[in-house]
């Protein structure tokens, strides 16, 4: 278990985590430090393109192994299923009404690609390999949770859980999904040769860009937390920390069942444990406008995201090593 503490400590003083902390501090201290919207969006496009491409190139190098289908199915099950668990937990643990609970649940069924990226870089630094197609698993997990949440609301009879075909298309063809899957396809098609051509852009400077992006996430999370003071009571915070643990546990089971190797299982845990804060909030504003964005944004970006980033990832890795054995 010293291993775990070492890992956590090591993780905590990485430039990536400290950049997030700096952003958090800047926001809390009410500094006017901010990253222009266009630059933040540009960085997120860069990150999605790079992670997708690298995943595709790795699939092209190592071949599609038999577990790919199993992993994708596991991802779908998680994304569809986790919202039900989250919803039940929220209704029991917290005073949230059906709509707010469903909206929060949608976020936890979906994923945070930045948490995924951070986990990949921790695994890399430990020399643990991962299956390239986990990127595709991440992509398929973005949307289904939204459907489950809307079903939960509709079942409750409340009006407004509006899912029409326009919304469905928007969710499935969401910019981040198209970019992630598209870059994955390009990486898979052009393979190692394509990767070699653009590696000086998407591989070597990647971690540095991630630092600036996390600085921005820290600023946004910090400002969100300040706005939401008073709203976020103890029970909600407890949910925001307990839920990723539950998700990770289920993710570990399904990942192992699907036959993933150690790195893949950890990534599956991270996907299950992380909560969306980009695609799902926009969909919720359209489909569940009565739900309070301050609640779901603060929980996913202000509580669960930093928890996963700092303690979650090393914990999931340690747990996976314990259960599955080192590689």
């Amino acid at each position, binding site marked *: 278990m010293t291993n775990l503490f070492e890992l956590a400590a090591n993780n905590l003083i990485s430039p990536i985590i400290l950049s997030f902390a700096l952003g958090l501090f800047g926001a809390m201290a009410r500094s006017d430090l901010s990253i222009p919207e266009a630059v933040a*969006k540009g960085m997120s496009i860069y990150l999605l393109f790079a992670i997708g491409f690298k995943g595709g190139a790795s699939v092209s190098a190592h071949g599609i192994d038999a577990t790919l289908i199993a992993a994708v199915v596991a991802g779908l099950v998680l994304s569809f299923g986790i919202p039900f668990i989250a919803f039940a937990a929220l209704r029991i643990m917290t005073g949230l009404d059906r709509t707010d609970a469903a909206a929060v649940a949608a976020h936890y069924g979906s994923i945070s690609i930045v948490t995924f990226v951070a986990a990949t870089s921790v695994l890399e630094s430990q020399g643990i390999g991962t299956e390239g197609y986990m990127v595709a698993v991440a992509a398929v997990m973005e949307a289904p949770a939204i459907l489950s949440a809307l079903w939960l609301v509709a079942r409750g009879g409340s009006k407004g859980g509006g899912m029409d075909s326009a919304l469905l298309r928007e969710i499935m063809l969401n910019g981040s999904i198209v970019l992630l899957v598209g870059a994955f396809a390009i990486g898979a098609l052009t393979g190692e040769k394509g990767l070699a051509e653009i590696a000086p852009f998407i591989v070597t400077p990647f971690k540095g860009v991630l630092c600036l992006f996390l600085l921005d996430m820290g600023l946004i999370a910090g400002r969100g937390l300040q706005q939401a003071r008073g709203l976020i009571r103890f029970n909600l915070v407890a949910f925001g920390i307990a839920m990723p643990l539950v998700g990770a546990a289920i993710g570990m089971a399904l990942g192992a069942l699907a036959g993933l190797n150690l790195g893949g299982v950890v990534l599956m845990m991270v996907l299950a444990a992380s909560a969306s804060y980009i695609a799902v*909030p926009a969909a919720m504003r359209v489909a569940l406008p009565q739900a309070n964005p*301050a609640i779901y944004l603060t929980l996913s970006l202000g509580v669960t995201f930093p928890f996963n980033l700092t303690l979650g990832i090393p914990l999931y890795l340690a747990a996976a090593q314990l259960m599955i054995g080192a590689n």
Partner: protein
Amino acid sequence: MEMHDAKRVSIVIEAPLESRLTDALTKAGVTGYTIMPVIGGSGRSGQWTRDGQVGRSGMVNVVCLIKPERLDGLLKAAFAVVEPHIGVVSVTDAQVLRAERF
């Protein structure tokens, strides 16, 4: 210069709803609109800013110049979209050049 009476309708609406609103306006017979950015604001649902945002968040301002007699139709169409959402609809009297365009 000859000016013609018109109404200037300004709708501040959440960005994810932009295309739904403009579709509704088009269906209601509006011949044109202009979309202007909003960088922040405050209201009953709190304060917000575009700074550093990554997703489709925040609000946009859809501005529409129309003949006065078309106001009611436009407002009904806009209201159907805005109603369950946060957002602000305001109308001012205006005058336009080249009225044949509206």
